[in-house]
C-alpha cells in the first residue's frame, strides 16, 4: 500500500538534468550515453536533459560554478544534487543524486 502511493507520486514527477561536458570527447559521449541509458532504464524516460558544452558556453559553467567535467546537475525535483564523472555506474549515480529507480521499486 505504502509502496503503491509512493509509486503513484513518483509517477507524476519529471526529472530535469543539466549535464556539463568539455567538448566532443570520448568521455563526454560516454557520460551522455550513460545518463540516457539510466534515464530510460531507471526513470522510465521521464526526464529532460540539457547538455552544456563548457568550451562553447563557459558562462554557464561560471554561473553554475562547475569545476570538473563531466558534471551532472539534477535540478528537479528539488533539492538540487550534483555528481561528477562519466557516470559509469548507474547505481552509484542514483545514490549520489538521492534517487530511487522505478526498476528497483518494481522488483520490491
Amino acid at each position, binding site marked *: 500500500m505504502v509502496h503503491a502511493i509512493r509509486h503513484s507520486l513518483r509517477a507524476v514527477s519529471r526529472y530535469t538534468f543539466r549535464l*556539463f*561536458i*568539455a*567538448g566532443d570527447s570520448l*568521455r563526454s559521449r*560516454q*557520460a551522455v550515453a*550513460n545518463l540516457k541509458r539510466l534515464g530510460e532504464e531507471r526513470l522510465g524516460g521521464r526526464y529532460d536533459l540539457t547538455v552544456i558544452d*563548457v*568550451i562553447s558556453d*563557459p*558562462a554557464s*559553467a*561560471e554561473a553554475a*560554478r*562547475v*569545476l*570538473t*567535467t*563531466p*558534471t551532472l546537475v539534477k535540478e528537479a525535483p528539488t533539492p538540487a544534487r*550534483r*555528481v*561528477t*564523472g*562519466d*557516470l*559509469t*555506474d548507474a547505481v*552509484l*549515480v542514483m545514490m*549520489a543524486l538521492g534517487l530511487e529507480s522505478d526498476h528497483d521499486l518494481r522488483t520490491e
Partner: protein
Amino acid sequence: MNSMVNNHDGAVAKIATGIPGFDVIAEGGLPAGRVTLVAGTAGSAKTIFSAHFLAAGITAFGEGGVFVTFEDNPDDIRRNVRAFGWDVAAWEDAGKWAFVDVSPEQEGPPPVVGQFDLGALLARIEHAAQRVNAKRVVLDSMSALFMTLTDRSLLRTELYRISMALKRAGRTVLFTSERTDDYGDITRFGIEEFVADNVLLLRNILVEEKRRRTMEILKFRGAPHQRGEVPFTITAEGVVVIALTAQELTQKSSRVRIRSGIDELDAMCHGGFFRDSIVLVSGATGTGKTLLVTQFLAGGFSANEKCLLFAFEESRDQLIRNASAWGIDFARMERDGLLRIVNQYPHAMPMEDHLVRMGEIVEQFQPLRVAVDSLSALERVFSLRAFREFVISFTSMLKRRGTAGLFTSTTPSLLGGGSVTEKHISTLTDSIILLRYVERFGEMLRSIAVLKMRGSLHDKRLREFTIDGDGMHIGDPFRDVSGILSGLHTFVGPNEAAGDVAGAVESGMKEGA
C-alpha cells in the same frame, strides 16, 4: 607603458611585476608567459603577493588580470585588499580584473562516479582571461584545490594542461601553494613544482623573537635572478621587497664637493664631502656627534639645500634647544622649508618598516642631505643581520638619489675603541670620521680624525677640537700624544714629536682608498 622587459642574449623575456623591489631581485621581473609557483607557510602573504601582482599590472601597465580563488571567496578578497587602496570591484566593472570563484561551497565537492577532468575550470579561466584580455593570471591556492581533489595523477595532468593553455595564450601565471615548513619540502606532493617553470618561496620566520618576512627566488628556468633570501614587508601599499645590493652598479659617483658646515673639517677632507657620499661619524657619548650633525644640516641650509634629520635618540624640542646653544636656528630652517626633523622610536616597528617609511619620507621631501642620529639606536633593536641589511638598503637608496648621508655611531667606551656598528658597516660608508676623548694631565680634550675618505686626499692627522657657543672649532694636530685610537695613549717627548712634524705633513695627505 608596457611591462615587457627587454630580452637580450636570448634569455627568457620578463615582465616587470610592478611590486616595489621585486623586479630588482628578479632582475627585471617574472619570466613572461611562464608559470611561477609561489610557495609559503600559512600567513606568509601569498595571497597579498598574488593580488599585488594583478593590482600592479592594472595600475602600472594597464594589463588585465584574472584571480582564480580556490580558498577565500571573492567578497573576502575584495574587502581584504581594500586596505592597500586596491578597488577590485571598480576594476571588475572596468573590465580589468575578473574572478573565477572556485572557493568551497557549503555542500562540499560533488561525489565522483567514473572518470573526470578539470575541463570546466580551464574553460572558465580562459573565458575570464579573454573577457579582461588578461596578461596575468593567479591561481590561489593549489593546496585548497588538492583538499577537494585527491587523485594526484589527475591533478598533475590537469594542472599541466591548464598551464600549457595559459602559456600558449601568452599569459604569465602565478600558482600559490601552502607549505607546512619554512625550510622543508617546497610543496607537499611535489606536483606544483613539476608544473611550474619558476619557484618563489615566501617565508615568515621567527628571528630573535621577532617576525621576519623573507622571499627567495629558488629558480627561474632559463633566466637570471638574484640568489638567497631578501627581506620584505607589507605596507599600506602592499608588498615591498627590500632589495639589497640593489642598483649598486648603476650608481654614478659624484665629484662635486659639499660643505660639511665646518670649514676646518672641509679642509681636512680636501674641500668637503662628496655630493653622493655616506659619512659615518663615530664617537663616545658627548664627543660632539650631534653637534657635527647639526652643523652639517646648517651647512646645507646656508647652501640652500633641503636637509632631513632622522632622530632616534633625542626629541625634536631637545634637538632645537641644542642647536640654538650652538647658534643654529633649526626652527627657522624648518619654517623656511629647508629642514625636516623626523623623530622615530627605534622600537616602534621592525627594520623593514623603518626602511620603507624612511624611504617614503625621503621620496616625499626630496632632501639633498640626510642625517641619521644615531645608527646605534637602531642597531640595539634590530638583529645584526637586519641592521646590516638596513644600512645596505638605506645607503644605496641615498646614493641612487645622489643624496649626501651623515650617520652617527656611538662607541661603547669613552676612550678609544670601535663599536659593533662600525665593524659591520664601515665598508658600506665612503668616509669615516672619528671623534675621541683624549685625557691629558687630568684634562679631557676632544680629538677628530678623518679615518678614511674614498676617492679623495684627506688629512691623516688627529686634531684637537673645542666646542663653544658657535659650534666646533678644529685646531692643531696632537703632536705629543700617541695611541689615542687605542685608548691607551702615551705622551712622547717634544724632541721626538718635533722630528716627526715634517714627515706627518708629507704623509698626512695621501691618495685615499
